């Protein structure tokens, strides 16, 4: 049986661990608050760009009357043979099942489309590391084209699923410029028919309690305005309860600030029932708006994923702190029993020794 000294040492070490998890929880709570604000601040733009695009699409014919040409290549739908999948995971661990769940969803998606060629763009370090172990990285070679310019040319495909790009550090400081670059890349690949569809896997963040994993279709644009959800995993009631508990103990409001009024107004953007004058021809407006729309969907997904990551870490660290407390209680009880047993034993020895005299 362990002696009192050993038990005391163990209690001390668990207490230290509890200190650390508690601190991590508070840090995550503070970061979550900031991430939540950013996610909320990013919403009006996302809503507005969606509604202006929607209204433009309703008013303007997709096909040019005279030439029969499509207003923009992004509206073109092709049979899905090559798919681009953007996987948004976290940069760091210690967030419970957050990263594992994102990757599970991505793997399910890949297994659900065994015949198709899939390119993966990994955002977030954790997901990238795991995906890179699993799938080969696409080979690019630099070639000089006829204008004397160097440009990367993709080598032959080694496997059905390949990793075409990663974006380390993108989530740490969400820079709209970099997200825009990613969006433009995706649009260009679609327009050049390198891919037939694009999907994104990420954690949606509505409030601290209400989060879910979704697979959303980025391209082709079939329905505008409403997110094109291709699959989602809702958290269980038990998980929601855990999250609510963690949020309360960290002092975070459960429901995000009321933004319904601003959202209502944002929805109306560009949808007034009047005929607009268009400063540019429709095709030009589409050409400007569509990449911006893809950007806004991506940016929105990333801000939400960052908030969800912090929320997941906060919940995980809250659980860890609770478990440590429980463990300390158990160990203290055990230690007291051991100590009591030792004292009793000594008394018995003294008493029986005295009786023997």
């Amino acid at each position: 049986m362990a002696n009192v000294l050993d038990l005391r040492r163990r209690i001390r070490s668990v207490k230290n661990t509890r200190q650390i998890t508690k601190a991590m929880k508070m840090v995550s709570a503070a970061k979550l608050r900031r991430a939540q604000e950013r996610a909320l601040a990013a919403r009006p733009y996302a809503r507005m760009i969606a509604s202006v695009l929607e209204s433009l699409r309703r008013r303007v014919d997709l096909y040019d009357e005279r030439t029969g040409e499509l207003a923009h290549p992004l509206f073109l739908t092709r049979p899905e043979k090559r798919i681009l999948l953007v996987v948004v995971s976290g940069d760091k661990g210690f967030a419970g099942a957050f990263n594992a769940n994102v990757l599970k969803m991505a793997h399910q998606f890949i297994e659900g489309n065994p015949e198709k060629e899939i390119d993966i763009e990994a955002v977030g370090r954790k997901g990238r590391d795991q995906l890179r172990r699993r799938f080969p990285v696409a080979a690019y070679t630099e070639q000089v084209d006829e204008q004397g310019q160097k440009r990367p040319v993709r080598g032959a495909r080694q496997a059905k699923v390949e990793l075409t790009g990663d974006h380390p550090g993108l989530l740490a400081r969400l820079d709209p410029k970099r997200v825009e670059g990613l969006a433009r890349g995706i649009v260009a690949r679609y327009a050049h028919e390198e891919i037939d569809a694009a999907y994104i896997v990420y954690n949606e963040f509505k409030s601290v309690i209400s989060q879910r994993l979704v697979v959303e279709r980025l391209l082709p644009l079939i329905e505008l305005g409403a997110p094109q959800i291709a699959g989602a995993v809702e958290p269980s009631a038990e998980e929601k309860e855990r999250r609510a508990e963690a949020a309360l103990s960290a002092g975070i409001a459960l429901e995000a600030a009321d933004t319904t009024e601003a959202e209502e107004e944002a929805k109306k953007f560009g949808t007034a029932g009047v005929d607009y004058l268009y400063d540019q021809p429709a095709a030009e407006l589409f050409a400007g708006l569509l990449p911006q729309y893809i950007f806004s969907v991506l940016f929105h997904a990333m801000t939400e994923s960052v908030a969800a990551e912090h929320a997941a870490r906060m919940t995980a660290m809250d659980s860890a702190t609770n478990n440590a407390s429980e463990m300390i209680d158990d160990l203290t009880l055990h230690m007291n029993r051991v100590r009591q047993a030792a004292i009793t034993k000594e008394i018995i020895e003294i008493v029986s020794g005295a009786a023997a005299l």
Partner: protein
Amino acid sequence: MAEATTDRLRVRLVTPERTLFEAEASAVELPSKSGYMEVLYGHAPLMAELGAGDVTIHGTEAAENEAGGVVRLNVSWGFVEVLPNRVTILASDALKPEEIDLPRAEQQLERGLNLLKQAGESVEASDEAQRVIFEAEAKIASGSGAAKAH
């Protein structure tokens, strides 16, 4: 919302990251892709793509106003919706003049010029270079204007 004043525009400037400006004003100057235009109360509904340049908002009652309620903001790319009583600007990027980093804008201009040199005959590359140059020039113009005003 009480619409007490009848000849005021509600102006809103939204970027992907934040809502930069929201207030009532009497007139707005916008850098449309095809040139500057000014919008007054009662303008016909209009939708336009924005280039890079300054949005100048006249006659605001915002507390931060200097020089007769004129607010100047540098925007790069975006869209604007004009309704008779409302102007909503969706900018890809927007900065207050004092936030502009002039040395960085100069660097951007240089980068743009280099891009243009390398672009050769590729239309896409030279378009991209033009965009960078245009944006940098607008930033420098509005940034140095701010420096003079102080």
